[in-house]
């Protein structure tokens, strides 16, 4: 499973929505994720990929696609190191 699919699974599990409705363009508001859902998703993604996502970075995510791209970059950076 690639990074995007893993994050989609995490977000779907936490928000209790069908993962098929989560597209790269979906905003957290559109999938009815509240602040607790978002923080839980961040923590779960950090634990899954062994990265830290500072709040100031997380605040810049406009949609699910931004979240995925950020994590993909961080994972790639980690693998390079």
């Amino acid at each position: 499973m690639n990074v995007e699919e893993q994050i989609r699974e995490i977000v779907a599990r936490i928000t209790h929505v069908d993962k098929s409705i989560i597209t790269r363009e979906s905003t957290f508001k559109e999938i009815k994720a509240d602040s607790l859902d978002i923080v839980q998703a961040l923590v779960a993604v950090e634990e899954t990929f062994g990265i830290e996502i500072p709040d100031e970075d997380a605040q810049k995510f406009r949609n699910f696609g931004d979240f995925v791209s950020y994590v993909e970059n961080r994972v790639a950076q980690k693998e390079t190191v």
Partner: protein
Amino acid sequence: MVHNGKIRVAVDAMGGDYAPQEVVKGAVLAAQKDDVEIFLVGPIDVLKRELASCKLRNGTSIHIVEADQVIREDESPVDVIRRKPNCSVAVAARMVKSGQADALVSAGSTGAAAISAIQFMGMVDGVYRPALVGSFGSFAPNTVIVDLGANVDCKPHQYLDFAIAGSVYAKRFLGIADPKIALLSTGSEDTKGNDAVRQAHALLKNSGLNFIGNIEGGDILRGKANVIVCDGFVGNVLLKFYESIGDHAKEWTQHKLRRHPPLRALVGLLFDKLFPSTRIAGESERRGGGILWGVDGVVRIAHGASRAPQIANAIESAKEAVRADIVGTMRSELAKFKQGGK
């Protein structure tokens, strides 16, 4: 669950308007009973000082567990997860998760306790968020309402969780074998209510639960349903309105009867005798009230303004919830529901 004949309760010693003094005193009061072992969670120095000022009888089972962070009232409860994972309520939640304690009691921020429970203890499989359940007491002794305020904005599937939590409450604390479940709405027809309520109606109708349909506000006290399901916004408004009726009716009649002193005194006495039982929270405190239902462990929320006796009562009701195995019952009810049974 029970360790050496004692129920182990982790107490968030730093939560509450009068913490840690009154929380520690309440814990000491509760620890006078032989069936409980208490873990006071908070900064060691502070708790040692507080305990030193209390009279402890020999053999009292009370211990201190270090938590070096405190969540303040002005902080977002969500901060518990990323910024303050070692605050007292989070440490207490992890003690329940790891099996070091059987229950958590907190008089601190309800949001912080709920978020600690969700994040560090987890939910019973299939449940999204915790709910608060309460019984109406005297006016409708066989009726409970869910949610009383834990979830202000609800997704349709949460109403199903509420129905199951309410059913478990009605079975375990009211002795009702097959509770009738109703959805609180603005009319009895399926099409009444807001979007979430209409979608919830469809889910409940096809759930296999003993769902009798929508009821209106006027039906609540008639006992038509044993479990009334609504979102936490409606539930909390209803709770506070219901609890205010007694005092308001007394004031109103006292004013109306001001020119008839003997009758006024008699009616005043009647109100004092009868109306305290309209307090949902007071009634429920003895029977599963203040419990966060749906969490994978017993979490008992005490009022923020609790003094020592209320803290001791909260510890007592947490013990009752452990003994009643509300978590195991909730889990088995959900499993039955998933299989399509009642």
